[in-house]
């Protein structure tokens, strides 16, 4: 089961990279849309904070990965 997962992840990554095309600056009007940003939005700031207190998992989401507060 584990090996199937690894193969699926590798296949997905390979197909994603294979479909990469060079996107010129003038073609980035959609990519540069403020809603397309690859980060949590400002309005999510306090949601990210409460996950830190109410859940055990943290990090890799733009928020803290531990420390800086009396949280998990």
């Amino acid at each position, binding site marked *: 089961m584990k090996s199937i997962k690894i193969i699926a992840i590798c296949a997905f990554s390979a197909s994603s990279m294979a479909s*990469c095309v060079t996107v010129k600056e003038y073609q980035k009007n959609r990519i540069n849309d403020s809603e397309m940003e690859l980060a949590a*939005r400002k309005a999510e700031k306090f949601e990210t904070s409460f996950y830190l207190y109410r859940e055990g998992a943290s990090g*890799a989401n733009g928020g803290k990965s531990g*420390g800086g507060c009396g949280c998990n």
Partner: protein
Amino acid sequence: MKKTIITIGLYASFLSCAFAQNTTKYLFKKNTSSALKLAPKEAKSSEENVGILKTLKLEEVNLVSSYYQQDGNNSAVTGGIGTEKLFDIANSLDIKLSFTDKKARKHSLNTDFSVDYYSSASSDMIDPRSISSASKQDTHFYPSISWSMKNDKKHQTVGANFSYSTEWDYQSFGGNLNFSKSSKDNNTEVSLKVGAFFDTWELILPVEFRTNSGDRNGSFKPRNSYNVSLGVSQIINKRLQLMAVIEPAYQEGLLSTPYHRVYFKDGTAKVEKLPGTRFKLPVGLRGSYFLGDRFIIRGFYRYYQDDWNMKAHTVSVEVPIKITSFVSVTPHYRFNSQSAVKYFSPYKTHLTSESYYSSDYDISGFKSAFWGAGVRIAPPDGVLGIKHWNTAELRYGHYNRSNGMVANIITLSAKFK
């Protein structure tokens, strides 16, 4: 109260500084003649300063306010039973300034002031003898300042951040250094961040475990956290971009909460005890896809595991729908599933022979869902016709956990440019 007044004062002074940039330009223009009277070297330096200050620009000001409330029946303060009722009012002011130096590098300076005021029914049970103990309510103040320098010629950015946090029983100093490098076509970016927090936790024990009669015994314990974050982002095509992040973190010191009670099977009670180290390994994948002309699909997945035997999967999806070119509605959904740490057991099920014990349901095994929607407006003439009020967003979310805890959060954010 004192902290609140200081915070409001700092907010006001920073706002006045930020919006006074035009005045600064005017003053320097008027004083140019006096700068020329200085010695040549000093005069050159002054001219450079004038140049920098002339390009000092207020990029944006963000205000975010939220109200959060929760309820449940598994408070760790009372050993895994009892009310978890809590509310939190949070406010944040974020000011971003920038200037371009003589080597055409763009410097950004970001200051953030955040304040939470909260009231917690379970914290009041640390000392249930008092009608309303000091622990019942508190103000959490956490400012931060960050700087970054972007060099477009070299396609790289370097930066640093410093943060401070203080609340009733907790104090923290944190910092990080970051570096990112993008490809010549700016379609690929690799980023690295190295950070640390140096925290101090005051040992405030539940009343029955205190050796003195006071609220506090003046004993402090450190908690240090170190993390490294490595990220790669890639523009796949004109509509799709992806980012992968791995962020290992290591913590040492007091990792248990001193006022959490644990009741054992034989009826005895102690305060929570957890190991003095914890290694965490989260891996995240984020993507955004522009579907047609009106829909954007934003997705996030994270796998997490640590050496306390917790494993977790988190998935979130939100779909901003552009109703018009300046109004969008965003439904969102997030699902989280986590296994319990090996030191967790519910109320009166721990054995006294165990080395570590906790009845904190935040690190128990559960599934949670968070869902809701947001409305965002960004009219070309400004919100309510106010030219500098660029964007307003209202967002609501409902959170529920499989162990019965529920929470609601409503957030209002405003961006001024």
